[in-house]
């Protein structure tokens, strides 16, 4: 049975492995370059004031991470969609379409065992693939995470490329594809529906992590207060006056235009605003919530996918054609 699974799906396995290898090579080169650059050019760690050396370093690191980062930015959408369409959808749909289920299900292996081997074998491979992706992105990010340049794993640019979330997306997409294949019994419609659902899920969940918990709230206590700790995921930023009324930056600027002037970037302005009782408020998720959010997103994806997968498996095992 394992041989059959491998024989029927080796193209997908080999292609995915090859793409991961290429990505790994790209990230290795980029990461080594960044580590080298950081080792030579990183200024002294306390870059509290904006010295030219500090900003030059930050700009240079940004320039380095951007092209590869943009490439990686597509992966959370593309990779699950491809996994769903090419690993999941054909799994059952192709058999039904070509009538080969009538051949395979009348050999001496039960339908249950056949299906279990395929789903468990391919599902495990897909999960492993997602973990490998996270495993090669993680050290690449670490190469850039040289102070004062700072990489936050909770940052939504990286959140779906590290930890268990890629694996959860890949596995759910695979199960989704398998289920649509079982329900539609034709490969192309199953692929199309899988792609559409993957895209919907991606755009639907794009900003969702902000809502995975009630954000923490910090109110400015001194003029120079840094509200959200390093590495946190910002949710909302606003101002309140003495009576607690909310102000956006623009509204505050308008209210203070007479007394504090218009140049909001100066320290004098900040002091003036503070003196008038305006306090900055930040709502954010601290970096410590990273794993909690990872598991939350994994649950949001996997629970519906597994329910749908269960329905599809039941339908397939029921001897009715």
């Amino acid at each position, binding site marked *: *049975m394992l041989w059959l699974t491998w*024989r029927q799906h080796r193209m997908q396995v080999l292609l995915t492995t090859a793409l991961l290898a290429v990505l790994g090579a790209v990230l290795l080169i980029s990461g080594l370059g960044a580590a080298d650059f950081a080792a030579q050019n990183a200024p002294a760690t306390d870059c509290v004031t904006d010295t030219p050396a500090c900003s030059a370093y930050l700009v240079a690191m940004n320039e380095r991470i951007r092209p590869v980062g943009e490439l990686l930015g597509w992966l959370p959408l593309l990779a699950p969609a491809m996994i769903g369409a090419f690993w999941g959808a054909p799994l059952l749909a192709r058999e039904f379409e*070509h*009538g*080969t289920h009538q*051949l395979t*299900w*009348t*050999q001496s292996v039960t339908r249950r065992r056949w299906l279990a081997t395929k789903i468990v074998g391919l599902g495990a491979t897909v999960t492993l693939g997602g973990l490998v992706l996270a495993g090669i992105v993680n050290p690449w990010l670490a190469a850039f995470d040289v102070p004062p340049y700072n990489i936050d794993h909770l940052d939504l640019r990286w959140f779906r490329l590290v930890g268990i979330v890629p694996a959860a997306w890949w596995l759910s997409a695979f199960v989704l594809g398998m289920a649509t294949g079982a329900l539609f019994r034709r490969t192309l419609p199953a692929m199309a529906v899988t792609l559409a659902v993957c895209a919907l899920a991606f755009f639907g969940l794009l900003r969702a992590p902000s809502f995975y918990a009630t954000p923490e709230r910090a109110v400015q206590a001194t003029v120079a207060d840094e509200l959200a700790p390093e590495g946190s995921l910002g949710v909302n930023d606003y101002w309140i006056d003495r009576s607690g009324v909310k102000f956006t930056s623009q509204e505050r600027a308008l209210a203070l235009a007479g007394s504090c002037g218009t140049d909001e970037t100066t320290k004098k302005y900040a002091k003036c605003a503070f003196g008038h009782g305006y306090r900055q408020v930040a709502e954010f998720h601290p970096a410590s919530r990273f794993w909690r959010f990872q598991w939350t997103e994994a649950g949001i994806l996997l629970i519906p996918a597994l329910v749908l997968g269960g329905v599809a498996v039941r339908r397939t095992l029921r001897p009715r054609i």
Partner: protein
Amino acid sequence: MTADRMVGMFGGGSGEFTPPVQSPTALEAIGLAKRYRGMWALRDCSLSVPAGRVVALVGPNGAGKSTFLHLVAGLIAPTRGSVRVFGEPVGQRAAALARVAFLAQDKPLYDGFTVAEMLRFGHHLNPGWDDALARQRLAELDIPLNRKVGKLSGGQQAQVALSVAVAKRPDLLVMDEPLANLDPVARHDVMRSLMAAVAETQMTVVLSSHVVSDLTNACDWLVVLNRGQVQISGEVDELLATHRMLSGPAELADGVAARMPVISDSRSERQADLLARTGPGTPLHDPRWSSSGVNLEELVLAYLRRPDTTSLPRPTLTIS
């Protein structure tokens, strides 16, 4: 289980020369019915076929042949009734699956596999796989093992599918329209190679067709399905021996028809031709009547035109 196995072993060697009483039942359907979306594809289908037979399952399109065969192969479950193969219920259990091989209508194979990989598929999925048999068959047919299945001709694909089914070493081989979509030469070759396999392995075979002439020489048991019901089930020789075409004066036809079941009745002004089931107790003495044998095609056609008539085995005493 052990007892069934033993019965199977005795039955396996019996072949067509053993009297039916001693052969175990290879295939037994009791009150079998299948409904799809409110439509009965098969209703109240009961029949029993002894082991070692080559069974022709014939009937018009839509008679329920495929449904019946899918039920026997365990691909679908009946709405009512049951099917047993060598006394064991069919279905998706490994032990039941191993005894029945099924060749579906389009002879599905994995097109991207080479012939050798199809054999490997059979080897991996069947504990009783007879690799030597499969390779020998394919070598005799000059089918290259390294060729992709999708690149073979229709006849060669049918042969590969048949080889995979036979090398499983089933007790019962079920084939749904195995000769459909084949050219006359391929039909002949497939049929000959099937009969060689039957002779070698002594398995029971059920094959369906809507063309009776395809099966006349190969089969020794006939089952006619019509409108979802079994119309005939019996040994071919016996059916041919008990059905006669009677020709005589039209004015006497009613008298003759009253004495025996008439399947088809065509009368002109003077002459009547009656296809009748003539039991041993109903000889025809009147010299004005002539009696001639019928062939299988005429017999089937006559029955299919009269869906209300049936010819099922008489109740017989069997020792069980």
